[in-house]
């Protein structure tokens, strides 16, 4: 904390800085919490290297075992899991790419132009954030059935291409980070409006695009309810749905299942290691910058 009376004023040895906990208590609380947070991930890795019989044994395994390879083979015998991971990746790429384009375009319009009904239209965009997703489950399923989009990946990325959250995020960033004079200058130089977007806005939006991209990618990768409604065959399952269908089998091979869990979780862990700061900022932006 910035307040540091302790050296100057012996009268008040510990300046109160709004801390309700002593430092020792705080650190032990944090260590305990961190342990509880990390342990399930640890056991995920450990169990993926054990056979079903070893996982369900007393005491349960706490260190890595010998069965990683057999579990992996058993996983691939039950499920085309690389295909499933590819399906997840494809969905995530399509949804991220289209979201970045449409949301930055709309965010640019809301941030940089003055036009009739701008505030009202932006109000509509924000209002759609308040619609609970549960309301859309049944009609979404019916609609995709009617369109013949069952088993088609586009049913999951097309509807959300221009999502309100992304538009909000991009508008905030463009409005605060890009000077209007720059846009004006480009316009006087004869740049078309889309040209301004492409040559001025996009290159200057790097950080916001990265944040929105990560958020969208992760949301798509982890999506479960959407694929549960849409996909009907193991070949088209994304990873999360493939895991669920493996778990549903009688005599679940838990070792194999946990190898699948590891393969699904690790890519995101890697992304998170490199981009956690940006990601946390992006994910909480809607809540903290409202």
């Amino acid at each position, binding site marked *: 904390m910035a307040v540091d009376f302790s050296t100057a004023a012996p009268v008040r040895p510990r300046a109160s800085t709004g801390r309700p906990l002593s430092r020792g208590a705080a650190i032990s609380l944090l260590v305990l919490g961190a342990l509880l*947070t990390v342990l399930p991930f640890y056991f995920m890795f450990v169990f993926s290297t054990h056979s079903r019989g070893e996982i369900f044994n007393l005491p349960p395994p706490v260190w890595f075992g010998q069965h990683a390879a057999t579990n992996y083979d058993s996983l691939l015998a039950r499920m085309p899991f690389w295909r499933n991971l590819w399906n997840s990746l494809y969905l995530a790429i399509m949804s991220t790419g289209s979201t970045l384009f449409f949301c930055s375009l709309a965010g640019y319009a809301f941030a940089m132009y003055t036009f009739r009904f701008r*505030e009202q239209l932006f109000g509509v965009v924000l209002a759609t954030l308040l619609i609970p997703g549960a309301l*859309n489950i049944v009609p979404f399923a019916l*609609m995709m059935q009617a369109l013949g989009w069952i088993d088609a990946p586009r049913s999951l990325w097309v*509807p959300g291409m*221009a999502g309100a959250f992304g538009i909000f995020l991009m508008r905030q960033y463009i409005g605060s980070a890009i000077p209007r004079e720059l846009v004006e200058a480009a316009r006087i130089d004869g740049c078309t409006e889309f040209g301004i977007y492409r040559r001025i806005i996009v290159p200057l939006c790097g950080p916001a695009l990265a944040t929105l991209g990560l958020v969208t990618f992760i949301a798509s990768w982890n999506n479960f309810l959407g694929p549960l409604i849409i996909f009907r065959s193991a070949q088209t399952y994304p990873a999360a749905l493939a895991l669920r269908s493996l778990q549903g089998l009688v005599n679940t091979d838990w070792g194999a299942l946990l190898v699948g869990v590891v393969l699904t979780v690790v890519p995101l862990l890697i992304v998170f290691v490199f981009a*956690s700061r940006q990601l946390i900022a992006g*994910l909480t932006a809607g809540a903290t910058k409202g």
Partner: protein
Amino acid sequence: MQASATAPPRPRPSLGTRWEVFQRRYAPYIFISPFFILFLVFGLFPILFSLYLSFHQWQPASGLGSMKFIGWRNFTDNLTDPTFWQSLRNTGVIALESGVPQHLMAIPLAFAIHTSLKKVQGLVTALYFLPYITSVVAISIIFVTLFSWQYGVINVALNALHQLPLIGGLFPAEKINWLGNRDFIQPAVASVVVWKYVGWNTVLYLSGIQAIPADLYEAASVDGATTRQSFRFITLPLLRPIMFVAITLTLIGNLQLFEEPFILAGDSGGIGNRALTTVMYMFRTYNFYGDAGLAAAMSWLLFILIGALTLVNNRVFGKSRLSGND
């Protein structure tokens, strides 16, 4: 592009100029149109259709022609269905059992991070945030193994803690059948939800705490305020807006809980239907019973409940500080 404008006074605008004027004038509308087109097609229309559907009897499998208007029947059927009420009760219990601890844990954690960590603050925050970005399906599958009755790590750990002197009595001596006992399945589901969202809430509260200017505490401390007093009279009031946002998000999310119980307890809702949430029951009504009208009506009943509770929450915690103008 400007060349065509040098023609004699007031000519018929050339095609180039007309395009020029058109794109300048309508660009913003064109740029925002994808959102509105997609929202009309995939947002508004389905929701209105669902409202229409909720007053009809319809098995989608037998075609559009079989749709029959039945007035409020779907709503009254739901409201007289004991399983629907049970699903609401389950949702409410799990929402409370997971929602309250989340915030009671997140606030002290945020304080601990803010006041006791300097260099590793980002690292620790990221660690706590990790469960939030992990697939719920993956998490739930891991927890199914951890919750296992005879061999699960959680029971083994609890039994070990029971052996401890002094505090041992706080922990159960018997192994608990977490996912197979009707009294324990709800706390089990709730604890997974807590595990997943504590970090998220911690980050929200941390951002709120960091936004409080340090000189406020300085001034209070000069005026002789104790730590407890500055917490009570500075921190808590200034944390209120973020508390409101965090609680609203928890409320709306928890009332629509689906994935965690779906994986942990199975699509049937677990022992005695105790983990059958309303969204799960709605999904089952549509997917397995094929009754789209009844399921649509159920989603509207849930919507009304969410809306009502959000309003109550607004009254209690918020000063109508909805995100709008920044």
